[in-house]
C-alpha cells in the first residue's frame, strides 16, 4: 500500500520536473557567470584550475561554510557517540594476516604522499583540499583495517583540525584588516602554472587538506572505536 502511494507521488513529481527541464537547453553554452570565470579566472586569481579558483576565491564563503559543516558533523558525531574510550589492551582482536599487515604498512606512506601531492597542487591540476584530505583519511582507514594497535592520537588530530580552520579564518580577517573585503587575495598572484602562484589559494587549500584529512580520520576513528 505504502509502496503504491509513494510510487504515485514520485511519478507526479517526476512529471513536474521533466516539464520544467524542457525549458533548460542541454549541452549548449548558456552560462553567464561561468564565462566570466573562465575568461578572467587566471588573471584575477592566478590559479590555472578554474574550479579551484571558483571554490576558494570567488565563492570562498561557501567553502568556509563547508568546513564548518564537516566540523559540526565531527563534533556532533562524537557528542552522540558518547565518551571516547581507549581500546582496552586485553581485548581480543584476531591479528590481520601477514600479507595484509605488510601491504598496508607499505601502502600507508604512499597514500599520504599522493594525498599531500593532490592538495598541494590544488590550484594547478584537478583536485584540491577535499580530495587530498579524503585520500589521507582513506590511508588512515587502511591503517586501522591493516595493522592493528595503531591509533591516531586524538589531541594531535584536534590541533590539526583547529589550526586548519583558523588559518582559513585568519587569512579572511587579514583581508578585512587591510581595508579590503573578507577573504581578499592579498598575496602576490605570481605567474600562472608555477607552484607558488595564485596568492592565498594554495595556502587555503593546504589548510583545508589537513583539516579534512584529520576530520574524516577522526570520524572513522570514533565509528570504529568500540564503546559501551
Amino acid at each position, binding site marked *: 500500500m*505504502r509502496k503504491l*502511494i*509513494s510510487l*504515485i*507521488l*514520485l511519478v*507526479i*513529481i517526476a*512529471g*513536474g520536473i521533466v*516539464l520544467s527541464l524542457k525549458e533548460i537547453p542541454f549541452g549548449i553554452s548558456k552560462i553567464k557567470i561561468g564565462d566570466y570565470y573562465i575568461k578572467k579566472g587566471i588573471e584575477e586569481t592566478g590559479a590555472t584550475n578554474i574550479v579551484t579558483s571558483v571554490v576558494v576565491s570567488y565563492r570562498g564563503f561557501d567553502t568556509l561554510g563547508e568546513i564548518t559543516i564537516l566540523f559540526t558533523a565531527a563534533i556532533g558525531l562524537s557528542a552522540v557517540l558518547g565518551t571516547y574510550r581507549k581500546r582496552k589492551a586485553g581485548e581480543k582482536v584476531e591479528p590481520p594476516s601477514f600479507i595484509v599487515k605488510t601491504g598496508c604498512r607499505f601502502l600507508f606512506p604512499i597514500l599520504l604522499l599522493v594525498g599531500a601531492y593532490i592538495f598541494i597542487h590544488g590550484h594547478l591540476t584537478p583536485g584540491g583540499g577535499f580530495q587530498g584530505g579524503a585520500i589521507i583519511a582513506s590511508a588512515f582507514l587502511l591503517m586501522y583495517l591493516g595493522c592493528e594497535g595503531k591509533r591516531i592520537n586524538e589531541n594531535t588530530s584536534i590541533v590539526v583540525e583547529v589550526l586548519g580552520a583558523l588559518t582559513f579564518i585568519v587569512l579572511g580577517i587579514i583581508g578585512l584588516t587591510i581595508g579590503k573585503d573578507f577573504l581578499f587575495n592579498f598575496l602576490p598572484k605570481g605567474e600562472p602554472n608555477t607552484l607558488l602562484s595564485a596568492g592565498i589559494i594554495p595556502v587555503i587549500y593546504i589548510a583545508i587538506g589537513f583539516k579534512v584529512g584529520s576530520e574524516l580520520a577522526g570520524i572513522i576513528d570514533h565509528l570504529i572505536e568500540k564503546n559501551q
Partner: protein
Amino acid sequence: MNLSIILAIAFGGALLTYFSGKISKKARDVLAVLISLVIAVILAFFYNTSSREIFYTGFLDFPLILRIDTFSWFFAFTIAVIGSFSIIFSLSYIRKKGNTDYYYTMMLLVIASMIGIILSGDLVSFYIFWEIMSWSTFLLISYNRGPAIAAGIKYIIMSVTGSVAMLVGIISLYSHYGTVIYTELSGLLYNASSGYTIFIFVLFFIALGIKNAIWPLHVWLPPAHSEAPSPFSAVLSGTLIKIGTYGIILLIYVIVKINVFLNLGEGIVSARYIIAVTGAITILIPTFIALLQDDAKRLLAWSTIAQAGYIILGIAYGTSESVASGMFHFFNHAIFKALLFMVVGAVEYRTNGVRDLNSLGGLIKKMPVTFVGGLIGICGLIGVPLTNGFVSKWLIYKTLIINNSPFLAFAALLGTWGTILYSYKLLHNMFLGQLPEKYEKLERAPFSMQLPIVILSLAIILFGILPGLPLKVINSIESGFGLEPLTINIWGITSDTGTINMLNLFVAVFLIGIMIWLIFKGSKKSAGIGQYDNYAAGTTVPKNKYHYSVDFYGPLHRMISPYLRDFIDDFYMSLARSIKNLGNGIRRIYTGDVGYYAIYIMLFLALLIFIQIKWKLW
C-alpha cells in the same frame, strides 16, 4: 485633577499592596482599604463634570483616551464604593486563609481595571482594560482550590470567547470608519447598511451578554460566584455583572444611537423586542432554578442572573422611563446583592465554611446585626415599599405596561413572585428556625464585617425613602443621551401615568410602627419561650431532629426540577468535549513512523505540482 491619576493610583496601588504585604500584613490591610477609599473619594469630586484627555499614545498609533461624564461617573462611583466596602469586609475574612497579598493585589487589580473600562473613551482602551479584568478575575475565582478550578476555567474560556468576538467588532468598526473613539463613532452607524449594524451589534452583544450573564450565555456565573471567596463574589455579582450592563447601554445609547437602535431590524422583528424577550427568559428560568439550590451562594448567584434580566428588560425599550428603570435597578441591585453576599460571607466566616442551607438555622439570636442586614437586603431584592428595590421595580413595570407588552409584564411579575420565595428561603433557613447544637456558642460577626453590612442596609432604606437622589443623577445621564428627563422630586416621581411619593408612605409606616411598638410594650403579659419548651404530644422534643428547614420547597422542587435541568450548560459541555475528541483525533496524524512523515512531505510537493499542472491556478 486629571483622570490618569485615578488609574495610576489604582494600578500602582495594586502592585504596592503586593510588595507592602511582604513587609507587614497590617500595613498592607490599611494600604488596601486606603487606596480603595481614595479612589472613591476622588471619583466623588468628579460629580457632573465632564472631561476628556489622551492618556497614552504609545500603542500602535491608537491614542488611548479617558473621559468622564455623569453616565460613566454614576457607574464608576458605585463600583468604587462597593469595591471599598468589600475590601473592608475581606479584612477579617481573608486573614485565616493562605497567600493573602496575592488576594488583595488581584482584588485591587479587578477594581482598577473595572474603573479603567468605565473611564475609557475609546474602544481600544475599553478592550485592553476588559481583558485585564477577565484574567485578573480568573486568577481570583480559582483562589480557593478544589471545584473553584473548574469554575475558573469555565469563566475564562467564556470571557475570552466574548472578548475575542468584541475584538473583531472593534477592528471591523475601525476598518469601516477609521476611528474607535466614542464621540467620533457615535451616529456614524446611521447610514451603515442594517446588515452591518446587526453584525456589529451581535458581536458586541455576545461579549457584553457573557459578562452580563444573559440567559443563553450565563453558564459560567453560578459556579464562579459560589466558588469565589465571598467578598470577591460580592464585587463579582455586585459590580462585575454591571460592566456588561454599562457596555450594553454604551453600545445602544452612545455608539449605535437610539434612533438607529429603535428601527433596527424593523422589517422582520425589531432588535428591541428580541432583547426584551431574552431579558424576560433571563428572569424566569434562573429564578426558579434559584429556588432549588441548597447552597446559599449558588442561590444568590442564580438570583443575580435573574435580576440582571430585569435590568436588560428595563433598558430594552429605549424610552426615558426604561433607561431610568434600568439604571436605577442596576444601582439598587449592586447594593443589596453585595449586602446579601456579605451576609452569607459573615455566616460562612463564623461557621467556618458552612453554606449549606439545610444545616444552618436559628442564627438570629447569635448574629442579630447580620440578620437585620439580611432582612433589609431581601426586602430590597423583593421590592418591598420603603426600600430602593420598590422604586426601580415600579419603574420597570410602568415601562412594560406603557409600552403595551403585557406578557413581559406578567413574566416580570412571575419573576418577582419567585424572588419572594427564594429570598424567604434564604433568610429563614439561615436565621430563623431551630439553632443546631454546634452553633450554641457562635459569637457575632467581627466589626470589620458588620460595618459594611450596616452601611449598605442604611443605604437601601435611604434610597428607598429618598429615591430623588439617584434619580437626579439618572436624569442628567438621560439628558446626555438625548432623552427628555423624568419629572422627579426628592420624595418620588410624578408623571401623568402614575406618581410615587415616598413621604406620606414613610409617615404612614412610621406611625403604624410606633403604634405597634406601644401595644407591644404596653401589654406586660408576653414572656419569652425557650426553643424546646413546647408541647410534642407527651414526648420530650428531640434536641436536633426537629428541624423543618431541611428541603424547604420539597414538593415544588420535585414538581419543576425535571424541566429546569440547565440544558444550556450541557450544550456547552458537549461542545467542549467534541473539541477535545477532535483534538485527540487530529493528534493521530503524527503516527510516529518516519515513512509516513516522508510521504507527507512528498504529498505536499505532489499536491502543489498537480494543482499547477492541472488547473494552472498560480
